[in-house]
């Protein structure tokens, strides 16, 4: 009887998971396989799509591409800088908010940048970064500071994009971290108080280790999302000056959709995907090692 029930359970498990697996198969696995397949072809249109097998040529071409490699470098740098700064700021905000009674009001205000469509954000910030008409240079003029070429100077343009992204996405990490802090059992924090911890000690010795998994997840999540940055770049700099703000999503978009070079665009997408997987794998390895060391 027990065996029959267990078997029924197994069938039920398989059946209940089947729709999701099918969805995953059709919406993720097949497109992914198709992308990998296409990356080995030169695809042209002549009343129908013509696929000419060219082996790894698309992958060789992307190495020589004037936009993709600078885009990869910029994206990795962009992702590292923005994620580190965002998580540090978000952590500080979350710790402070945790002590505030009506934090829901502050959280609602912090949420605003996430709610705005990226196209609106790009337009607003382009206006604020303007050399002659921009808000930032206008404010700086009151301090007697010379106007800054926010989007024209190659180094400054990259920093400007980083600032925008931090403003845009820090609230996302704040929400994740504040939720994690709220989930810490009260008795642990109260025990700390009994032992005489102050605000900083509590944050460092109690809260940080307990929410470390959330910090890692928030960082990984933001890291992946940083690889998708597009709208802000498109509206603010279009990848320029030169390739100072070129990012992979922009290169892929230009190649795949604008130049209609499907094979090369697919090769770029596959390479980027592999790159992200490798980075995620390395980060996870480091995380596991860190956890093991902590437990030791």
């Amino acid at each position, binding site marked *: 009887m027990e065996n029959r029930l267990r078997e029924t359970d197994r069938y039920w498990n398989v059946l209940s998971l089947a729709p999701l697996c099918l969805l995953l198969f059709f919406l993720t696995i097949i497109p992914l396989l198709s992308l990998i397949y296409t990356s080995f072809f030169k695809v042209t*249109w002549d009343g129908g799509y013509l696929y000419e097998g060219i082996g790894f040529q698309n992958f060789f071409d992307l190495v020589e591409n004037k936009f993709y490699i600078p885009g990869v470098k910029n994206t990795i740098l962009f992702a590292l800088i923005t994620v580190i700064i965002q998580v540090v700021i978000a952590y500080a905000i979350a710790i402070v908010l945790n002590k505030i009674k009506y934090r829901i009001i502050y959280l609602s205000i912090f949420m605003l940048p996430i709610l705005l469509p990226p196209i609106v954000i790009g337009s607003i910030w382009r206006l604020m970064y303007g050399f002659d008409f921009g808000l930032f240079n206008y404010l700086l003029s009151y301090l007697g500071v010379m106007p800054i070429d926010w989007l024209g100077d190659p180094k400054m343009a990259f920093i400007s994009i980083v600032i925008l992204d931090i403003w845009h996405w820090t609230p996302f990490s704040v929400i994740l971290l504040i939720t994690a802090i709220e989930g810490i059992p009260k008795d642990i924090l109260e025990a700390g108080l009994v032992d005489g911890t102050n605000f900083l000690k509590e944050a460092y010795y109690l809260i940080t280790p307990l929410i470390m998994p959330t910090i890692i997840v928030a960082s990984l999540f933001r890291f992946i999302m940083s690889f998708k940055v597009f709208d802000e770049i498109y509206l603010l700099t279009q990848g320029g000056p030169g390739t100072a703000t070129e990012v992979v999503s922009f290169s892929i978009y230009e190649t795949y959709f604008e130049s209609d070079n499907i094979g090369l665009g697919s090769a770029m997408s596959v390479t980027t995907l592999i790159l992200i997987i490798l980075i995620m794998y390395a980060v996870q390895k480091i995380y596991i090692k860190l956890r093991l060391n902590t437990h030791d």
Partner: protein
Amino acid sequence: MKGLVSLLAVCLLASTATAAKLNMLINQSPWFDGFRKTLVMYEEETGETIELDVTPYPGMSEKIRNSIRSPEAIYDIVITSTEFMATYANSGEFVNFNDIDPDFKLDSGICGYQDTSYWNYETRSFDAKNGEFIGIPVNGNVQVLYYRRDLYEEKGLQPPKTWDDLIKNAAEFHNPPRMYGMIQRSERGAVTYNFGPYMFSHGGAVYKDPQNGDFSIVFNSENNRKAMEKYLEIRDKVGHPNAHSIGQGEMIQYLRTGKAAHAIAVIAAWGGMDDEEKSAVIGKMGAALIPSGPNGSASSLGHWEAHIPKNVRPEHQKAALKFLKWLVTKENQIKYTENGAVPVRCDLIYSPIAKEDRFRFIEALGQNSEVAKFIAPTVTAVESTAITNLYLNKIVAGEISIVDGLNQAAEELHKITADNGMKTGMLPKLK
């Protein structure tokens, strides 16, 4: 009962006789409102209906591609910009208008735009003599010289004839940051287009003889070097130091706020100059022929052509052509202009509206249309323009020298044309 049947029959006949409802893809732009108003006039006049899919520029190419490659077209009319005009012309997916109406031809009053209505599939180039008739211009966007006519009148100046005249005149007003003598649009996405008039007026080009199918790269020519030197001289003497980060939006902003004495901008930007809600320079702006270099005056084409895809049903093809024919007649082009769109007829220069102050741009539009050239009339325009934009932007930003920038761009362009099986070649490296 008989009466009811007759009534039903009449209704049925009426419904089958009703004109086809067409779909048209059009881009969201400053001239769109003028187009829409004119379309309403057409619908009222003929009882026909054309639904518009108004799309931001970045989404246009993809929508065209999806429509013309479907078994049945999504759009009965699509419009292409100069950026991807040749690519889609060469796709072979557009109807030859003479297959619908063998007697139809564009009348001589319509601007020629370097033969962009005709595509030669053999040479893969625009060619009125041997090409198929696949496009009808619907927007005559070209660049013109904007200048502050009120300030010119105060100083007793005449619009500049040469680049040196421009520097001289602009210097009279150059007082940054209150006013810049000249605004150049050199951001990465647009610098090639803005550089075009300088390049052509110095006898330069990107390709040697595209109209005859010779796509040899001449981008690293001595003429282009001189053109870029002039471009930078203008920036350094009377221009904006951050030209390399100025896009179309900023350029228009400088003009409308009265902070620019001159700019070379598309005529589509004219729309807001005399608009009380948008401009601080109402009635103060003038438009003129772009100054000349050693090779005369030149502008860059930025117009739009309408096409009917082959996968459109025959009755819809006829209806679509009927509308396009209606749109380009002189009478309707005057209405089109009055509605705020950019006309495609060069003969409007001689029409009475050209004398009206509110249409004072028409003469300059006609003159610049006559000398406007196509920068990249090739199937690889998107890729090649991305390359020229990158290197020209780097030159203007001071990241690379003129010689290195032009040489490196030429090498990349040569690779693109060779990879696409086009007749090509290269100049020796510029020293």
